[in-house]
């Protein structure tokens, strides 16, 4: 029993890691007043670029860095669409996601069909220093111990953070205060995209060591829900990611319970998503959306 519990907690941390990266990237973007629906596609991009570069160079770290750069580039493309051109954010984001998923899958097929149809690397190993709960990948430690506090500091205590919040809340005020709304939004999209891609790369470089179709499996959409659940706060969003991961880890264990074995496994698989919906239904009313959410900024 204790072992099961420890297993669940350990798995929770693991499962939540890509969600923490992606949802915090989305927090930064949305705090600047933009909904970035390219998140799912950006995670695919990160997953694919990460493993491809890692396989070519033989260095997982190089792969991760390449994924991060690719994510930042996707963020800038999104910026060109929604900041420079003022395209509808839903359309731009969904369009990019569709494009990037297909592009990743296509590139994967063309590049790697001649062998066994799959690129493989030797992934990062968890390192164990205090029992199975803390037998985790270094990126998991980085997500909780470095990334989250650093982003909190960035958002609430740094110059760029106050600018991000200002352009997301009231771009007119920010403009009058001499802040470049466009540059700040590009920055937020690039940083957010980099984080989303890092979340995607975690899956290929740490979890699996390979890239498959449907590898992200809606984690980007979950991250969007987590941001709303987290009310655009760093810690609440991280808590949301942990909660979602906890339900995921629990259902994995439940599948092993003999009494539940006659249930179609999809029902248990759906549990975390139902939890997201329930969580949003309970906490998602009267949420304080950033003031300039979804609004392109144009000077009069």
């Amino acid at each position, binding site marked *: 029993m204790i072992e099961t519990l420890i297993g669940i907690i350990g798995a929770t941390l693991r499962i939540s890691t890509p969600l923490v990266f992606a949802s915090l990237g989305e927090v930064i973007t949305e705090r600047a007043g933009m909904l970035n629906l390219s998140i799912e596609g950006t995670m695919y991009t990160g997953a694919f670029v990460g493993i491809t570069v890692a396989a070519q160079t033989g260095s997982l770290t190089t792969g991760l860095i390449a994924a991060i750069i690719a994510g930042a580039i996707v963020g800038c493309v999104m910026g060109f669409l929604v900041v420079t051109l003022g395209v509808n954010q839903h359309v731009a984001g969904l369009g990019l996601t569709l494009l990037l998923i297909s592009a990743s899958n296509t590139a994967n097929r063309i590049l790697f069909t001649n062998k066994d149809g799959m690129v493989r690397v030797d992934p990062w190993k968890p390192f164990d220093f205090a029992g199975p709960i803390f037998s985790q990948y270094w990126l998991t430690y980085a997500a909780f111990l470095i990334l989250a506090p650093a982003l909190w500091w960035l958002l609430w*205590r*740094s*110059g*760029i*953070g*106050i*600018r991000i*919040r*200002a352009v997301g*809340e*009231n771009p*007119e*005020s*920010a*403009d*009058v*205060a*001499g*802040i470049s709304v466009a540059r700040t939004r590009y920055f937020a999209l690039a940083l957010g995209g980099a984080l989303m891609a890092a979340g995607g790369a975690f899956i290929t470089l740490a979890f699996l060591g390979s890239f498959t179709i449907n590898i992200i499996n809606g984690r980007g959409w979950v991250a969007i829900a987590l941001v709303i659940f987290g009310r655009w706060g760093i810690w609440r969003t991280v808590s949301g990611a942990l909660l979602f991961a906890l339900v995921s880890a629990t259902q994995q264990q439940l599948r092993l319970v003999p009494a539940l074995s006659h249930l179609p496994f999809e029902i248990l698989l759906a549990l975390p998503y139902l939890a997201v919906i329930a969580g949003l239904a309970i906490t998602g009313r009267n949420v*304080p959306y950033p*003031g300039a959410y979804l609004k392109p900024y144009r*000077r*009069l």
Partner: protein
Amino acid sequence: MSTADVVTGNSVATSAVSLSGLRKVYGDVVAVAKVDLEVRTGEIHALLGENGAGKTTLMRLLYGLAKPDAGSISIDGTQIAITSPKVARAAGIGMVTQHFSLVKTMTVTENLVLQDAGFFSLDLAGARKKLLTLCEEIGLEIDPDARIDSLPVAMQQRVEILKALAGGCKVLILDEPTAVLGPQDVDSLLDVIRRLRDTIGLSVILITHKMHEISKVADRVSVLRRGEIVATENANGMSIASLTSLMVEGVQQEVVEEGIRSSHGASVLEIKDLTVHLRGHDVISDLSLEVRRGEIVGIAGVSGNGQSELVQALSGVFAHQTGEISVDGKVVKGGSPAAFAQAGFGRLGEDRHASAVSALTVEENLILDRLHFFSKPGLLLKRKIRKFAEESITNFAIKAKPDQAIGTLSGGNMQKVLLARLFGERPLAAVVSQPTRGLDVVSTGYVRQLLMIERNAGVGILLVSEDLDEILELSDRVLVIFKGKIVGEVARNEFDRVAIGAMMAGV
């Protein structure tokens, strides 16, 4: 003596700002034709002009929010190109606009630090200390850690001024600063402006169209008409009459006739113990009032004391709304806008852009609330609609075609369309909210006259306005609202600005 110096009497006054030949054209519209203006160091310079005279454009040019097509700007005698607000601030120009440019979800300190934040560096503690020192120096009080949306409007405006001063401002532009304030707050703002001039030698450009403010604080006045400065004179030598005629010369003003006040009849609108619970507290509590046939009852109050909610409650839209509303002696049941319309109650909302569907045409907007009357099942009766629209356009002097999108009309004409919709089929009672907000003198005069005509024809009108002058001009009785309660009632023959102002402030 440099060219920027100007001799006044026997002393030499230096010019803080001097504009010469400034021009700005938007498309076909000449917003600023050719402006020469000189603001001296340490003076309060009032800039007076009608809506559309170019005041705001002029200030946007000065603050780097728009680029001039011609002309030049000199600060302290040095000509500079003001290409952005940043450049303007560096040159010592600060601006407080009509819509505050504060980030509402941030604290006072955060708003102040916004303009000098580095890429990573952000000195919140230092900014907080600087703010407190500044406040002490000029004798203002403010809580540096309060969130902007928790502060009353007058305080938010102080934050704006402090923000400008903290940015090293030597010339402060105030764009219609008193439009959003109650009478008490107006006095203390004017007091602050004077104090800033006297203690730190601040130059102030005060954009306004309120004469009594000019006579209270301004040293000099410039009048702007159709994008040109038509006069600059010492404030104490000018009479209100001459200023007004300078301002509107050539602009035809419709005279408001008082008309005959009909004797009041039976009650047409009665509100009993209305309570509206919103965002965790009662925004209106136990409010009762009565409007009789043929009278205008004005609701005076500082904005945000429940006026908007009162108007909305009169279409029964709130979920947590209790109390009884009767029109013509019958309780309105059902709590829907349609039920109120059926009972003979009309409504002009505070925001005409929200009330009109801007993509629809004038005629479509005119019939929007009475579609059943202009349609057979599934079909609009085009000819009937057109006839009604043409009649409305004539009767209400609307400058528009029936098939023109309402969004393309000027504020005054849009308001007339909405008034035509309201009064076209004469209601028994109506609530009219901010009927002249943002309108020019001519349209304002028309709207006010129309309200009196309707009153004289027997409509009981509840008038909600933030413009106390408007309320005093039109109302037969004034009710003062404070924190969602009626705190006083004054009959027309007892009107007293100071007493009403005190009640509005909750004194």
